[in-house]
């Protein structure tokens, strides 16, 4: 982000924006940024809170009035905390169905069937979905992951389709897991995804396969977050 600001400003455009990691911005010394304490992934702070988002934007735009820089100003407000009375109940029963569960492929197919009503509810409630990067139906994506973990090796790995498949599968599960009305704790959703679903377990197995190959160490970042690996 800081590099983009640097190149745009050096071409004559005035820039301002949001910094999420103050130390990174401070090091690169771009012209103007407003540092916020918001979580990574939420540069405007809180979804659905238009007045808060507007205040953040206006504070960042105000930096355009400064006469010299670099400017790295701290935004005084934290993102509003959401009162979570209880962790939302996981909307999916993970009791294993009686069908074949001897392979990752079978387990993931079963789980997707259980997720579907909740994903459908999410689409209905939100009026949108963020699934669709891979451009193929979701039930064709799980086999891409299952094939690798079932064979226990990365033979035949097709990296780009796998990256998009994982993105869509995780989006599908997150939308299903957050389908219930009311508030949720996104860290708890991540914990549920990684610790309580077959998808999470399959992705950990895939991550292990990547970790075993030094050439693929960097590529692990499409699979498991550092938080998930350090659980």
């Amino acid at each position, binding site marked *: 982000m800081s590099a983009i*600001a*640097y190149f745009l400003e050096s071409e004559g455009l005035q820039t301002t924006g949001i910094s999420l*990691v103050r*130390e990174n911005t401070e090091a690169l010394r771009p012209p103007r940024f407003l540092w916020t304490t918001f979580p*990574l992934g939420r*540069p405007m702070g809180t979804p*659905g809170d238009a007045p808060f988002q507007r205040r953040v934007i206006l504070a960042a735009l105000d930096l355009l009035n400064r006469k010299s820089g670099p400017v790295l100003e701290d935004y005084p407000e934290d993102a509003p905390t959401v009162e979570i009375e209880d962790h939302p109940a996981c909307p999916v029963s993970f009791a294993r169905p009686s069908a074949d569960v001897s392979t990752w492929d079978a387990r993931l197919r079963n789980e997707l069937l259980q997720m579907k009503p909740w994903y459908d509810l999410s689409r209905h409630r939100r009026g949108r979905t*963020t699934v669709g990067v891979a451009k193929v139906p979701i039930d064709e994506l799980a086999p891409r992951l299952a094939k690798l973990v079932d064979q226990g090796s990365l033979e035949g790995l097709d990296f780009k389709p796998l990256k998009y498949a994982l993105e869509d599968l995780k989006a599908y599960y997150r939308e299903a897991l957050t389908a219930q009305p009311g508030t949720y704790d996104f860290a708890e*959703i991540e914990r549920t995804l990684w610790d309580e679903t077959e998808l999470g377990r399959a992705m950990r197995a895939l991550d292990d396969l990547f970790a075993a190959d030094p050439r693929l160490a960097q590529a692990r970042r499409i699979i498991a977050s550092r938080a998930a690996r350090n659980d």
Partner: protein
Amino acid sequence: MVRLVDLPEYEREHLLSKNMPPLGPTPWVDLDRPLSERKIALITTAGLHFRDDEGFEFADASYRVIPGDLEGDELVMSHSSVNFDRTGFQDDINVVFPIDRFRELAAEGLVGGLATQHFSFMGAGLQPAMYEASVRKLAGLLIKDAVDTVFLTPV
């Protein structure tokens, strides 16, 4: 919260490893122009694009075009990093790409106008200098669109 002191050590060390030296002396544009006369473009590094667009590669300095009249609900995300929350984006595009907030500011006359197109990069896996060619080219397009100000959001 992204206060480093609040993060686990592995996360703190990772984020600090991203500190890079300046690309050069800080460039500075001083526009003596009120917000109400400015034309603003939004640029995100969240790896957003339309469902039908080509997704972002593992490491990718290219950008995707987001037309100014988009319906925000049409966007998906193919960012290569999994180390940030995506549920906020699922609930509200504006928490990542605040297009509705800027439309409101433009409708109120607080900002002069919005760009014909906005843009999305995918900020992961590349040294900062790798973005130079595509960003400088993009700057020319923005200037042709009479944009004078860019609002940047990371992810």
